[in-house]
């Protein structure tokens, strides 16, 4: 007697399109996906626990390793949380430098997001172009902090080094490139029929579904919800800056791609304003060598490149945090994978995964 049955396909943990080590258990009915179950933990390093045995200053380099693509934003989030806990006032110049770095890192991260999406769909050329332009951002980072990854630049109380004239020069030159390369991607990818057919209308999500799953960042904005903590909280100097929040409509892969493309242009706008507004002055507040924040707890959130990045810190009045919990946007956004994959073809699971754009270092923490 002939019969059909569902079967299980393991994708990963060594699959090239998982950008890290993620295993997805796909329950399949022929080519159609019935269920996608991510299996996490291959990159778990216990960063939250490690932080408990380190001083606040020593914790900072570990945040670099959460979402290793956007280290600046992680540094920013943690530094802000500790500053709130210890009541440290950050000099104005440092705030502007921080915002510039965070936005440069956002562009950097979105470039990788788009590049890998293109690569996973077979357009490797697209990826190389994105990596080419990312190099210019890394040059700026290298200039200000001496590292091209794991920057450890935004510190508690300010930033580690000044924004030099050379860095300004490099940034200006990069800003000039932004519209150029964006239009290049439009020619290369946005208009490419093969690329668009793989992403338009695929893995759509409604705003309600995204909100129910607690998704944030470009993934949520693609569904049409204009929620951005930079606007909502106006933390640091974001309140004084003028920028828009790009939103999508259908919440499909195409919208997620488009939101990222538009956000890059917005970030460039923010950087431009910061360069113009940045005052002279100190870059570091007076922070005691033995930082002992008073007893208490704090939850501080920032808009990371992938959504709401929150640091919850409990202090017991000593030099080391009693407990740190990190709300990692990639981890939460991963919940959407199942919903995005249901009813799609196997090949679409790759594009769904890429368009969520999770970083495994942050998913597993």
């Amino acid at each position, binding site marked *: 007697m002939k019969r059909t049955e569902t079967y299980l396909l393991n994708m990963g943990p060594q699959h090239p399109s998982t950008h890290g080590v993620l295993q997805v258990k796909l329950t399949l009915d022929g080519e159609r996906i019935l269920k996608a179950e991510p299996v996490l933990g291959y990159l778990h390093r216990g960063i939250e626990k490690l932080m408990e045995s*380190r001083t606040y*200053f*020593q*914790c*900072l*380099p*570990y945040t*670099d*390793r959460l979402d290793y693509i956007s280290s600046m934003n992680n540094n920013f989030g943690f530094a802000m949380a500790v500053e709130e806990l210890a009541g440290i006032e950050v000099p104005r110049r440092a705030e502007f430098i921080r915002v510039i770095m965070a936005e440069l890192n956002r562009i950097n991260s979105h470039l990788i997001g788009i590049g890998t999406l293109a690569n996973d769909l077979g357009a490797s*050329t697209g990826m190389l172009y994105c990596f*080419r332009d990312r*190099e210019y951002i890394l040059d700026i980072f*290298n*200039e200000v*902090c*001496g*590292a091209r990854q*794991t920057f*450890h630049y935004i510190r508690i109380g300010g930033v*580690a*080094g000044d924004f030099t004239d050379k860095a300004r020069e490099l940034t200006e030159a990069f800003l000039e490139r932004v519209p150029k390369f964006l239009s*290049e991607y439009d*020619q*290369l*990818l*946005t*208009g*490419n*029929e*093969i*690329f*668009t057919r793989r992403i338009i209308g695929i893995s759509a999500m409604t705003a309600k579904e995204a909100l129910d799953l607690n998704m944030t960042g470009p993934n949520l904005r693609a569904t049409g919800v204009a929620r951005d903590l930079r606007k909502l909280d106006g933390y640091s100097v974001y309140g004084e800056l003028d920028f828009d929040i790009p939103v999508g409509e259908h919440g499909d892969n195409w919208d997620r791609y488009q939101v990222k493309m538009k956000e890059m242009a917005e970030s460039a706008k923010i950087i431009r304003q910061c360069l113009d507004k940045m005052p002279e002055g100190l870059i570091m507040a007076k922070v005691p060598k033995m930082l002992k924040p008073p007893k208490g707890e704090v939850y501080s959130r920032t808009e990371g490149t992938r959504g709401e990045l929150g640091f919850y810190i409990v202090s017991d009045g000593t030099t080391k945090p009693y407990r740190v919990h990190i709300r990692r946007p990639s981890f939460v956004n991963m919940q959407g994978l199942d919903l995005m994959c249901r009813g799609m073809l196997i090949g679409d699971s790759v594009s769904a995964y890429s368009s969520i754009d999770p970083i495994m270092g942050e998913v597993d923490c």
Partner: protein
Amino acid sequence: MFGKGLLTGMGVTIKHFFGKKETFCYPEEKLPMAEGFRGGDLTMDWRVCIGCQMCAMACPNKALDLTVVTDAKKKRHMKYYIHKTGRCLFCNLCVEVCPVHTLQWDKNYANSTWNKEDMVHDAMTDKDRADLDIFLSDVEKKAKAEAEAKAKAEAEAKAKAEAEAAEGKPETPKAETKAAPPKPEAKAEAAKKPAAQNAAPDAEKKAAAAEKKKGGEA
């Protein structure tokens, strides 16, 4: 028309094919690193280093294993400066905290190894250590000579003073000379001790701490 987008995309690549090259031939050509580039191994000069071990204390991941010796004049010197590159976060905290700014990166970023065990680097070369030994024995000799000279001068002065004070009483200087000699000897011994022994307990303590740490982390 289907395929128009594809052709436009190809136009972009063709333009780049004839345009300016973005890449360079890596092992032959190398990019200059930024001034503050953090990477490679740590270097330091033991002549400048004051052996305060602040760098090891600032390190978040216990990547620095230092052995400090104390010379005859109670000054600390670095003997082994082991930088475990495999554990290093390249966070720059050690470099920033050094009070005499002798700690630097050598910027040699191509420092991958075949084995995990090779991922250690001693910032002190054997030559440095030989120099250090010479320096230490010099200091010891100097200290000994100084101590002797001091004791001698003191004894002489005392003897002279007492002889002057009690002229006519020939027995007292005899008693004085008996009391004086033990001084330099005791001092010289005390000076020898830390130089020879300090290194051992220090290293032992550290090794024990490292063991404990390893156990705790595992």
